[in-house]
């Protein structure tokens, strides 16, 4: 009888260690999700910072393209007005709003780049080229940051949904499964043809 007691005791102790291990892993993964999200926000901000310069440079050569330039400025204003903290990352509505606004900004920027094609002098301007490569770099970083964010959520969810981790998480932490947002690719501009 005493043997059985010891075996059970060892079992409980081992399970205790396992619980600690799981909780600590979840904490690490949760922090990773938070920091990937702030990376996404960082890159959005970085892009927003590039735009005033870009607009001014283009204006210098293509002042008549008022419409596109205004679109970009307005889209940027709207996107930067939506500020999300790491906490809000779990609020699907706010995230959707942010993604939508950023998507609109991406579209406005693409349209601007199309317009720029018409001005070879602008395209050859070193300042513009520098801004353009910074913008491209930032766009790439945005893609990467979003990919990393989705992956961070995936790893967290995998860990927390496993057995017995889900039980452990429910009873010893306040962490829950995170909603993974479908991060839509750049909104494609579909031209509406009116007959």
């Amino acid at each position, binding site marked *: 009888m005493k*043997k059985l007691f*010891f075996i059970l005791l060892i079992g409980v102790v081992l399970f205790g260690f396992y619980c600690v291990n799981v909780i600590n892993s979840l904490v*690490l*993964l949760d*922090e*990773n999700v938070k*920091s*990937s999200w702030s*990376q996404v926000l*960082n890159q959005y901000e970085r892009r927003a910072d590039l735009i005033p310069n870009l607009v001014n440079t283009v204006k210098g050569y293509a002042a008549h393209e008022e419409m596109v330039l205004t679109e970009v400025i307005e889209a940027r204003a709207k996107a930067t007005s939506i500020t999300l903290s790491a906490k809000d990352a779990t609020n699907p509505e706010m995230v959707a709003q942010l993604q939508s606004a950023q998507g609109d900004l991406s579209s406005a920027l693409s349209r601007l780049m199309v317009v720029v094609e018409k001005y070879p002098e602008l395209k050859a301007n070193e300042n513009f*080229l*520098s801004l353009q*490569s*910074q913008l*491209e*770099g*930032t766009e*790439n*970083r945005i*893609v*990467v*940051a979003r990919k*990393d964010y989705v992956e*961070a959520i*995936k*790893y967290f969810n995998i860990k927390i949904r496993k057995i017995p981790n889900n039980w452990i998480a429910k009873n010893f932490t306040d962490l829950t499964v995170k909603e993974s947002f479908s991060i839509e690719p750049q909104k494609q501009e579909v031209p509406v043809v009116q007959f």
Partner: protein
Amino acid sequence: MRKNIFLFLIFCFFSLTVWANLFRPSILGNESLPTLTGRVVDNAGILDVKTENKISAILESLEPDQVVVATVSYLNGKEIEEYALQLARYWGIGEKEKDNGILFLIAPNERQTRIEVGYGLEGTLSDVLAHNIIRKKVLPYFKRGDYQNGILSGVQAIATHLNGSVVESEKPISLNKSEPMPLGIMIFLGIFVFFFVLISFLILKEIFSSGKGTKRRSGYNTHNIPSINYGRSKRSSTRTVFRGRGGRFGGGGSSGRW
């Protein structure tokens, strides 16, 4: 006897699950990526030996920054931005704490090239600089079909800009999920865990044996346990293999198409 076998099986199962959990398989789908064989990985076969050695020498002089030049015949249908990032991360170019890695990737068949810059070097080799290098030093040669001089010129330009300073930029918390585990270590750990569990089982058995004078020797004799064979004895540990040191990448750098 049956109870012993039962307990033994439980311990085997336990040690197996522990061992199996040590090696979570990579979910990233990196099977089709080339292997990192050295500082220059010329899978597209566009560099001759002389140029390759010249490039290798320049790259070696840039240590501790780890710069790798790679050429590939296929991008597997991906754009070079996606491929370069995946490859740079898979190879883990650059040092773990400094993230000072750069991957210069050339895909001659898809006519795309990219300089992928690790977090730690984004300040030194900015997107603009990388773009200028590609535009001014590399593409002019590539457009003429001269890959050797184009790559060499690009490497020289990168080397000129890397003057040792590593600038801190935004870095996320590292998650130890992309380190490949060599087979030898896997086997070693497996054997270690197995023997650890076996020994604990035996110790416990001794503790719980019904006291003195058990004539039933169940055949487990401590003298029969062979010494733990460290898997390393099979590999020559003197060979210095070039491998990435865990540097991280965030999508910085620039691409060129021609």
